[in-house]
């Protein structure tokens, strides 16, 4: 069994409630942190090597140290709970089952950053979780871990939950801030970065739910001990939400030393491909990251075992690798059509584009239309090149990363499954009749007994 730092207690009966959470050792991180100087807490997080768990993987301690601290200006911490990346449902799990872990992490982080007013921005659809979080906040307050003069240290902190209303783009930190200010979720041009000018023009840190929860074990263990878990620059544990055609979809906490093969086939995790089928492809880090065919997923281009960590998943760059991203692990079996799957993702990004930048606003729509045409059996060979051309013209040409996120899945699908696109345009009658792609892509691979 892998070491669990976040979900170890998630299934203790009643852990949603303060008394049980506290009895199980909860809020010790707050007690410890509030005895330290705020900057020392930041140092511990730096030492831990923790990287943002929302998708970008930026060093959390470093992000915290960028926060401007002008005299007399309030600073804000905002928790990004706008989990909307297709394939990702780990933050929901954490908030639903062990909400106090997030609240505890938020108190510690608020103290470290000097935020007296902290917001959790949660996607609007997670409506029932709002009540769970508000209950946890009220309990923490009753017990002196939140509110005025926390543990008699003179530190005041209030946490408020803000519901979004259905917009993937609000997961981008400046769009999230705009939304929190009561506006459309249009990302801002950076710089200035939120650390200088964020919420209401004040210095702001935006962190993902899992990132903030991880601050708790970092405080409890100490940054150096935390950094010993995992491998290289992939320290600590990571929540992976696994879905698609596997036997055991769900949220798993892994230490980042296990191989992709073990993660897919071991009964401790995904339990193998559903219905006895073969693995065809996988998007290992949420819909935005490149899809990989089975052979490149389990082994790198150099023939080395691929592991479930930041470095190994991105080994080979976008040519032969992918990314850890948000940990949304989407598995496709041999009967799934890559064109059709990519079409649903293109439709998603077209729907979610905020419309500010032309390459993204227009390009996502064009990509969806062309993919729909190919999938419907109306495609011609030049459509594939056109699709490639459009994605290339979106990437890097937009204010925020949504453009890149829309371009990458299309690019990777063509890069690795061009034959399947060609099959669609060469077999137009046939692909109208059958909804699956080419089974031969599921290369014969070694399946551990």
């Amino acid at each position, binding site marked *: 069994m892998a070491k669990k730092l976040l979900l170890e207690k998630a299934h203790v009966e009643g852990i949603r409630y303060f008394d049980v959470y506290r009895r199980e050792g909860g809020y010790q991180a707050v007690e410890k942190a509030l005895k330290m100087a705020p900057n020392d807490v930041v140092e511990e997080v730096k030492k831990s090597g923790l990287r943002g768990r929302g998708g970008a993987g930026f060093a959390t301690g470093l992000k915290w140290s960028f926060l401007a601290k002008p005299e007399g200006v*309030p600073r804000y911490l905002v928790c990004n709970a706008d*989990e*909307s*990346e*297709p*394939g*990702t*449902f780990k933050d*929901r799990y954490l908030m639903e089952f062990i909400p106090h872990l997030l609240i505890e992490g938020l108190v510690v982080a608020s103290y470290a950053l000097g935020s007296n*007013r902290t917001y959790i921005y949660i*996607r*609007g*659809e*997670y*409506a*029932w979780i709002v009540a769970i979080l508000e209950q946890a906040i009220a309990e923490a307050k009753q017990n002196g871990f939140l509110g005025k003069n926390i543990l008699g240290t003179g530190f005041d902190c209030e946490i*408020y939950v*803000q*519901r*979004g*209303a*259905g*917009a*993937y783009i609000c997961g981008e930190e400046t769009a999230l801030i705009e*939304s*929190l*200010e*009561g*506006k*459309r*979720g249009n990302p801002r041009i950076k710089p200035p970065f939120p650390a200088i000018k964020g919420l*209401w023009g004040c210095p702001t840190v935006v962190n993902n739910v899992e990132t903030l929860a991880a601050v708790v074990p970092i405080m409890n263990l100490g940054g150096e001990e935390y950094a010993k878990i995992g491998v290289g620059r992939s320290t600590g544990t990571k929540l992976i*939400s*696994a*879905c*698609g*055609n596997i036997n055991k*979809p*769900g*949220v798993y906490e892994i230490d980042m030393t296990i191989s992709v093969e073990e993660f897919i086939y071991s009964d401790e995790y995904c339990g193998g491909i559903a219905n006895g089928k073969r693995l065809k492809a996988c*998007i290992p880090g949420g*819909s935005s990251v490149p899809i990989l065919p089975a052979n490149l997923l389990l082994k790198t281009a150099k023939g080395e075992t691929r592991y479930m960590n930041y470095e190994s998943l991105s080994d080979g760059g976008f040519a032969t690798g992918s990314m850890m991203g948000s940990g*949304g692990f*989407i598995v*496709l079996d041999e009967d*799934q059509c890559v064109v*059709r*799957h990519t079409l*649903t*993702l293109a*439709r*998603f990004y077209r*729907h*979610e584009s*905020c419309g500010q930048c032309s390459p993204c606003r227009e390009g996502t729509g064009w990509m969806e239309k062309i993919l729909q045409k190919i999938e419907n059996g109306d495609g011609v060979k030049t459509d594939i090149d056109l699709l490639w051309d459009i994605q290339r013209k979106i990437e890097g040409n937009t204010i925020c990363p949504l453009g890149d996120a829309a371009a990458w899945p299309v690019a990777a699908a063509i890069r690795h499954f061009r034959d399947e696109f060609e099959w669609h345009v060469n077999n137009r009658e046939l692909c109208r009749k059958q909804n699956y792609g080419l089974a031969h892509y599921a290369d014969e691979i070694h399946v551990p007994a």
Partner: protein
Amino acid sequence: MVKFTEDKMKEVQSMIDRYPEGKQKSALIPLLHLAQQEFGGWLSAETMDYVASLLSIEPIEVYEVATFYSMFNLQPVGKHVFEVCQTGPCMLNGSDQIIDYIKQRLNIGVGETTADGMFTLKTVECLGACGYAPMMQLGMHYREHLTKTKVDEIIEECRNKQ
């Protein structure tokens, strides 16, 4: 006339109190959720103007927000809204067939409401339930691991709520 009850006005005030003075516009999205819930499941121009007046902002500031976010309905909807996810991971687990089945059962297309005003069918993009696919949102909650039988049960359940 559109107007919150006294009780709801207290809720409105507590929403506004979450933000520093002068930043009451931040309460706009929470207020629109509340207004949609209280005033018939959608946001009419009258409702949006009312919300603008509560926050001392211009009506256009409300319209531009209401039109941006997909959870706000700008047209009347049925009593029960089936919002079925159709993005990748749900598609891999048969959401297309579920959507077809609901269409056939309710005899409506996507975006339509049944003649008796009971049901509206919407397709939505990823709701973060990929491991429990296929799924739909019904009111404040998710219905997961959908099958045809489950869809039948949900329709029955909604009809019995009459």
